[in-house]
């Protein structure tokens, strides 16, 4: 691309985004959709167009996995690398596809046609193995589909001409309760809340004792009240639809089939706190839902449910904008999400101050999870007390579980809080279960002797992931997958997380290659402790969870990988001689290092 073209592309994208530098990430996504990748010229052009330093644009472009600062293929195939996808055969399928396309994993094919690599969980665990092709999810990959994909790519078939069946995404709702059960009419809940008046609406929220469904479980009403009471007029409501936790996909279903409830919940929040501006931050993997969501928003605007004087209430002006993410799990952390919304790198902020007083562009901001917001419609409709009647005392209402892994019926299950693990396992047709990972990579690993425990903030809290592992699974590999995930997703801001997650990843790989030693386990435990205690945000402090749990509950799975009780070298000594062996053209016995000799007394 010439410089002129770059300027034009940049100018158009910036115009579409109102020349607003806080929309930098949106501009870059827009430009890349046209140009394929972000060349140095494009980055310069965008910077010039928005009037921001070029290096800032480069910094943002370099942060997100789905922004490319190197040339990419016409077809970019990314296999979802979550453990559930792997258990369904993703690695083997990826190798097969690479073989058929004559391309090395992670490298652009020589003709520039295609690249094949992995990406973090795409949220299709109930219909995996899944992949993204040019950002579009493709589910239920098997060898037949691999052949089909390879053929389509070789024929250079444009994506829109691919069979739509390939891209079918199912809701797989298996159990419905309060939220997924009855149909709601758009505006119904909002009308009910307006009728109650703002104070009573907040009172109902308090009565409901609704707690955030994103995992942390902070009481929603407290958050809203704080935002409402914060100084400053320009308040903001943000819906966190950056559902990046591996194994979680319930927000995807809500956004697909219950978008009105989600937007209505945002509007309810706006009504409570007095916000005029709303954002839905949609993870890049769910880009395919954008048109649908925009359509729902448009419909709600014309129905008077968004815009000025909503439902005729003078002064209740609120509208919602959708921002796209671009492949960064850390943006699920609310302050990182705000940074990203402002068009920056998704680095978590120092807290205090908290978003309720200093959020988006320094304004008081409420950030709520998709499910939390959708749940508020139930409170508006039926009152806080009714909501609090289900679930447990400390965890009211219902919880959506995204169930995947070794079970007969993966999909979405809505349960009142307090349901036991064994109950859920029975419902989804899981047998011979060795472990359940609740809450995703950052959650808890439960062994069979804990299956009597209950899903609730006071017992087993969860953002919604529920991955099942039967007795054939290697729990070490499960932990390794999560460790790798965190190393890939660490934003790199703070020392312990940036370095610690990569160190952990290296140790786990060392064990996986069969060269672990007891001392490695001690190091792993020490790094875990450091990550938990000194990380800047939840990503780092929860990164070791899976390893810590697995080390306690499935230690033999680790010990199986130990070669030595004492010590093993950090690297493969003999492989380290390969370069010199080739250069000198030697194959005499002295040109090799024997592993066995390393064993110390």
């Amino acid at each position, binding site marked *: 691309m010439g410089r002129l073209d770059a300027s034009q592309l940049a100018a158009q994208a910036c115009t579409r985004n109102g020349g607003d530098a806080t929309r930098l990430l949106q501009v870059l996504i827009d430009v890349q959709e046209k140009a394929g990748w972000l060349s140095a010229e494009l980055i310069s052009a965008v910077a010039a167009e928005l009037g921001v330093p070029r290096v800032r644009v480069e910094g943002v472009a370099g942060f997100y996995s789905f922004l490319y600062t190197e040339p990419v293929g016409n077809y970019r195939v990314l296999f979802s690398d979550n453990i559930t996808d792997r258990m369904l055969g993703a690695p083997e399928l990826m190798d097969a596809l690479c073989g058929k396309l004559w391309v090395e994993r992670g490298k652009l094919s020589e003709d520039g046609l295609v690249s094949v690599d992995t990406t973090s969980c795409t949220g299709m665990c109930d219909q995996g193995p899944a992949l993204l092709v040019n950002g579009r999810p493709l589910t239920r990959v098997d060898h037949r589909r691999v052949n089909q994909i390879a053929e389509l790519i070789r024929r250079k078939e444009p994506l829109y001409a691919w069979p739509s069946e390939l891209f079918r995404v199912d809701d797989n709702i298996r159990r419905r309760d309060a939220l997924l059960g009855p149909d709601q009419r758009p505006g119904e809940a909002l009308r009910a809340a307006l009728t109650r008046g703002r104070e009573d609406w907040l009172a109902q929220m308090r009565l409901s004792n609704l707690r955030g469904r994103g995992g942390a479980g902070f009481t929603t009403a407290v958050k809203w009240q704080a935002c409402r009471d914060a100084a400053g007029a320009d308040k903001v409501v943000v819906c966190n639809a950056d559902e990046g936790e591996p194994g979680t996909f319930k927000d995807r279903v809500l956004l697909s089939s219950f978008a009105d409830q989600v937007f209505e919940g945002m509007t309810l929040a706006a009504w409570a706190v007095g916000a005029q501006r709303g954002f839905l931050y949609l993870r890049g993997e769910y880009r395919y839902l954008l048109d649908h969501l925009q359509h729902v928003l448009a419909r709600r605007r014309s129905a008077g449910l968004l815009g000025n004087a909503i439902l005729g209430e003078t002064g209740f002006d609120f509208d919602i904008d959708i921002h796209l993410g671009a492949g960064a799990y850390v943006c699920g952390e609310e302050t990182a999400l705000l940074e990203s919304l402002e068009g920056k790198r998704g680095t978590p902020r*120092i807290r205090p101050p908290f978003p309720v007083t200093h959020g988006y562009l320094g304004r008081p901001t409420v950030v709520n999870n998709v499910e939390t917001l959708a749940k508020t419609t139930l409170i508006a409709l039926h009152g806080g007390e009714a909501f609090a009647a289900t679930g447990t005392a400390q965890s009211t209402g219902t919880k959506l579980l995204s169930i995947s892994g070794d079970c007969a019926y993966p999909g979405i299950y809505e349960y009142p809080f307090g349901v036991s693990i064994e109950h859920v396992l029975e419902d989804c047709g899981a047998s011979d279960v060795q472990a359940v990972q609740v809450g995703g990579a950052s959650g808890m690993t439960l062994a069979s002797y804990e299956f009597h425990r209950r899903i609730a903030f006071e017992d087993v809290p969860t953002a919604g992931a529920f991955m099942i592992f039967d007795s054939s699974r290697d729990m070490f590999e499960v932990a390794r997958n999560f460790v790798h995930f965190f190393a890939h997703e660490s934003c790199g801001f703070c*020392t312990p997380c940036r370095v*610690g997650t990569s160190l952990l990843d290296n140790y786990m790989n060392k064990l996986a290659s069969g060269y672990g030693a007891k001392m490695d386990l001690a190091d792993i435990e020490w790094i875990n402790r450091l990550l938990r205690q000194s990380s800047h945000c939840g990503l780092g402090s929860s990164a070791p969870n899976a390893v810590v749990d697995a080390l306690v509950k499935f230690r033999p799975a680790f010990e199986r990988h130990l070669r030595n009780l004492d010590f093993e070298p950090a690297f493969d000594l003999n492989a380290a001689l390969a370069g010199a062996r080739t250069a000198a053209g030697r194959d005499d016995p002295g040109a090799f290092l024997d592993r066995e000799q390393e064993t110390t007394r």
Partner: protein
Amino acid sequence: MSRQFLFDGQPVPFEDGQTILQAAHAAGHYIPHLCWHPDFPPHGSCKLCIVKVGGRHVSSCALPAKEGMEVESNTPEINGERRALLQMLFVEGNHFCPSCEKSGNCQLQALAYDLEMLTPRFNHFFPDRPVDASHRDMLLDFNRCIFCELCVRASRDVDGKNVFALTGRGIHKHLAVNAESGRLADTDFAADDLAANICPVGVILHKRVGFAVTIGKRKYDAKPIHTVALEEGE
């Protein structure tokens, strides 16, 4: 009467808005730090300044002091963790102190001495980070970067130039300069910028100065960093 908190058992007075670190330093108690600088808002990335308050680890550079807090800092537990963080910084980059011209004047090194770090302990990453020598007066040796972002902040907030920013993510995070070519020479960076003189380690260097200061006269030769920092208000 001014308010106070307990720092390692000693009462430390503080004023409103002061962080734990600021108040502790003002009272003559050093807390190790790398990314914190008295002239800039807290950054909180290096985590060397962690202390324990009520059983929780917090960044003392960022947390406002509160009446009656009990802060643990100079304890074997916290210092052990700080040492481990230093070890992580050492294995992450390429820190060859013996031939580094910043030796003796380097905060990372001085802090490692202070915390009696004898080994980097972990396995080294040995990353490939080529130097940028394109600028007439300045050299960038990225091998030693610890991502404190002091240069980023100084250039943006004081010099008004935005010469630096971080790009990449995770362990691949790195410093970038404000030029399409990626070369420092093509920026408006100047040797008297604050950003050119604030690097706590040996990344941003004035060319052709090298080992101008002889051993014995360097900043941390005679006194350890906890003494120097308190004396000079750093």
